[in-house]
């Protein structure tokens, strides 16, 4: 069973066993506009919770993507390099950014669940 959590920076993270997949939420993808470029982390890179892990750019905006939880990058979605539009088309599916081996699952547990994130969005 996989579980999905969210950050207040509009990243989502899905945990399957030890490995987590990270991307940006539909809300984030829509507010950025057409994504034209992504910069992905190299696998093997260690990231801390809240640390800069990737970059996503549209024509008039650029955002850092922070690691929702600390760990080691195991895989980046290189398909986005030639097809960044996937981030807009399917942000919470095919438009994922990277996979992480978490170093501390407690950090994951502390993040918002879907209901809390939905409430957070309403508050904006």
């Amino acid at each position, binding site marked *: 069973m996989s579980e999905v959590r969210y950050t207040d920076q509009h990243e989502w993270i899905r945990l399957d066993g030890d490995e987590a997949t990270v991307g940006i939420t539909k809300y984030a993808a829509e507010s950025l506009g057409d994504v034209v470029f992504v910069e992905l982390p190299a696998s093997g890179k260690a990231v801390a919770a809240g640390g800069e892990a990737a970059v996503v750019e549209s024509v*008039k905006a650029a955002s850092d993507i922070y690691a929702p939880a600390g760990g080691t990058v195991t895989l980046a979605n290189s398909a986005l390099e030639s097809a960044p539009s996937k981030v807009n088309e399917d942000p919470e599916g095919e438009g994922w950014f990277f996979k992480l081996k978490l170093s501390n699952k407690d950090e994951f547990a502390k993040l918002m669940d879907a209901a809390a994130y939905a409430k957070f969005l309403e508050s904006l």
Partner: protein
Amino acid sequence: MSMNNQGRPSSIDKGSAGEAFPASIATISGDRGLDHEEALIFELGHGATGVDLPDVQISEARLGGSRRSGAIGLPGLSEPEVIRHYVRLSRKNYAIDSGLYPLGSCTMKHNPRLNEKMARLPGFGDLHPLAPQSTTQGALEVISALMNWLTTLTGMPAVAMSPKAGAHGELCGLLAIRAAIAARGENRKRILVPESAHGTNPATAAFAGFTVDEVPAKPNGRVDAEALKAKLGPDVAAIMLTNPNTCGLFEGEIVDIAKAVHEAGAYFYCDGANFNAIAGKVRPGDLGIDAMHINLHKTFSTPHGGGGPGAGPVVLSERLAAYAPIPLLVASADGLRLIEDAADAPEGARPFGRMCAFHGQMGMFTRALTYMLSHGRDGVRQASEDAVLSANYILASLKDVMSAPFGDGPCMHEALFDDSFLEGTGVTTLDFAKAMIDEGYHPMTMYFPLVVHGAMLIEPTESESKHSLDRFIHVLHTLATEAKAKKTERFAGAPHLAPRRRLDETAAARKPVLRWKPDPLKAAAE
């Protein structure tokens, strides 16, 4: 009859009058009247030449074996073809000479032609930067006169002339601050920048090796002075504050802020891009600032030229003056002299380095000085007052239909609106701006400053007549009224009447094509 008897129709006959040219009938040429399509110079070249030069043959002996082996690939055209190409291109541009150009923060004021003429006098335009100084005394005199104008108008003791634009001036100011801090044996790394700041401010801070700490704005559009003071500390090198700020408002607490900054051992950098609101009326030096760049291409009317060149001299306080970069201009027994090497600097001077080769944007100096001499101090003051008056007139005339985010108070030289008046209409700031193009206007600055949602920043400058302002106000008023009534036809897909419709910026960024390349099929055939 022996005279010319071939008359032709000279009144509009019923059959051909009134109808717009149907869009469905494309012209044969692709051009539409005066609106010509124009190919790239590379597509037009055909091996002709626009210059007549002798074809001298040379020996290889002194080329060190480095002679070019392949062709460059440049197109060849005759002079009439080249002139036609650029004249046709020019007609696809909006310009201040052809209409009101309300770009907030950019100061699109009238560019007098006398300035152009003076800059082209051979004694200025055809003068080499390293010619013997005895043969360039008049040029040094221009620099010296301009320095006097700038220090007098700002009430500051010194000015560094070499920075080549506003952002370069910011860098110069921060490097002087860095040097001053180092001279005190301190190491301060943080620079406070309001979130409403122009992008060059944080970019320059990073460029100069500092970290950036953002200070929030208050609901009245000014920097939150309390939050700013709370952030001051022993690691703060400077604050960078724009005044009048990017919302077109004067930072009324500036003197108080300057005091707190100095007490914390930090320096006060002022972004002077908006000096045109107060020149001849308020001296930044009286407000406690330590450094401020002046965009000669804004306040002092040197033309923007489609993106440059500019010039960004930086005035410096007593505390920073010693660190001004080389070259330095000094008076000596045999006239004015440029000090070009740090080791030759006069007693007490400790230049932090050099901003660029040679001595700055001389071509802009001659233009700016010509402008200042034309205006005089009284004209400079009147220009500032007229710029502020015109912006307030626009604000007062449009605030019933557009939304001014910062209440009823007067603005300085630019009027700021947000997009709340468009809420629920389906029209965005972008649509609104593009509809202005169809009305014959260049849009205002949009989506800047970032602290205001869907910002529209209107700077009319002092160069518009009341008639011109009234016409502009009428158009914007009507557009806003229609948008609010959800009459959105004008906005969807605008502009319709410009040389181009909206351009696909997404495609341009996803698959960048940044240069022309020969068509591979055609090349193979040749």
